[in-house]
């Protein structure tokens, strides 16, 4: 799993990589968590909050962006940071995921939305799944 933050004029451009698609999706969640609460997911704390999400989308890229959008909504609705994902079902067009995290008092930053802009889930020349994700902040 690799998470990188690249330069962007006004918003946040994140590049994520994973050996398999599930890992790529996990990288997206962890990368988003770092923005909202820096370093929180590096702490070894017992999770006290979970949420189950089900997403259906037309392709892998939409599935990832829609999944991250749902996770973002859960962040704000539950006032929690989610660090771990268990996939109960996973195909190119559909996923059911259980996300685990902890409730917190406040975030470091705010993300308005996960955008489809520049997102393109594909395999790179090192046979890893990768994509850019742009957050509107």
């Amino acid at each position, binding site marked *: 799993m690799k998470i990188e933050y690249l330069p962007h*004029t*006004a918003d946040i451009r994140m590049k994520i990589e994973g050996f398999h698609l599930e890992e790529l999706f996990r990288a997206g969640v962890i990368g988003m968590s770092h923005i*909202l609460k820096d370093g929180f997911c590096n702490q070894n704390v017992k999770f006290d909050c979970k949420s189950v999400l089900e997403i259906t989308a*037309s392709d892998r890229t*939409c599935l990832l962006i*829609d999944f991250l*959008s749902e996770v973002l*909504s859960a*962040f*704000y*609705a539950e*006032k929690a940071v989610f660090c771990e994902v268990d996939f109960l079902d996973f195909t190119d067009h559909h996923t059911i995921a259980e996300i685990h995290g902890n409730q917190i008092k*406040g*975030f*470091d*930053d*705010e993300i*308005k*939305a*996960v*955008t*489809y*802009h520049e997102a393109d889930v594909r395999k790179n020349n090192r046979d890893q799944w990768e994509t850019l994700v*742009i957050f*509107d*902040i």
Partner: protein
Amino acid sequence: MKINKEDIHKLEDYLWEIPKTFRPKMRVPARVLASEPLLDAIMEDRSLAQLVNVASLPGIQGASLVMPDVHEGYGFPIGGVAATLHPDGAISPGGVGYDINCGMRLLTSKQKIEEIKDKLEALSKELYAQIPSGMGKGGQIKLSAQEMEEVLLKGAEWAVGTGYGDKENLAFMESKGRLENADSSLVSDMAKKRGSDQLGTIGSGNHFVEVDYVEEIYDETIAEAYGLSKGQVVVLIRTGSRGLGHQVATDYIRQIMTAMPNYGIEVPDRELACVPFNSEEGQHYFKAMCAAANYAWGNREVISWEARTAWRNIFGPTA
């Protein structure tokens, strides 16, 4: 898509056009309001490619346009303007943006900068105390389900009716702070949940409350009409519909992306997803968007009340 300077025709000193022959799917030309040096700067990002994409939207009229503050956005360039034919031209949540009814409000004061200079630090602390900012923070108001319905339907009128503002303020707002086509039932429970404790909060990013003063008057008549004079202190507020609006945009971009093929619409960028205005999906988005816009007006009215409270706490009850 590469756009070169020779693809752009000069119509006037501050008006430039990419003709609709530039790309087969363009339905109208794309126009830029800018000086030549500004146009050169604009060409450094992908704003103009996005403007050309907007020119391909179903039902677009006249031209796709960008203002001098244009920069690259999501699907649509920021600072873009597009009008589509009623009733079956395109409506696109991406065109409205993720922060529905993000807007500005200027509050005037009776004070001059020289009179308040020594109290600016105290004022700044009091503004911070009264107005929650940033990080998905909640505010002082926790809306019940019934109150949320009223905010979504009445906008700034709700704030005035509940003591968070004065009726005379409504006359100074766009659409008097309320869009009548709002339908709160089309706003998702998740959006309502995210907005339930954010009324009266600024948010982060490019949102702010700042204390300014009028440094120079360029047009006396306009300044007088706005009640502005040299040296006068003002408070400028910029915010929108907060998490509620972000969620409405996210919900409907996804829905409209799914519905779009049913209307035979193809767009060159996912964020341009659109449907005919008079389609069921188009009407649902429109009415939910109006509700989110009302929330934003309510938000700015409550923030204005908070700013006025901070002001009075520092300068006295009659300030």
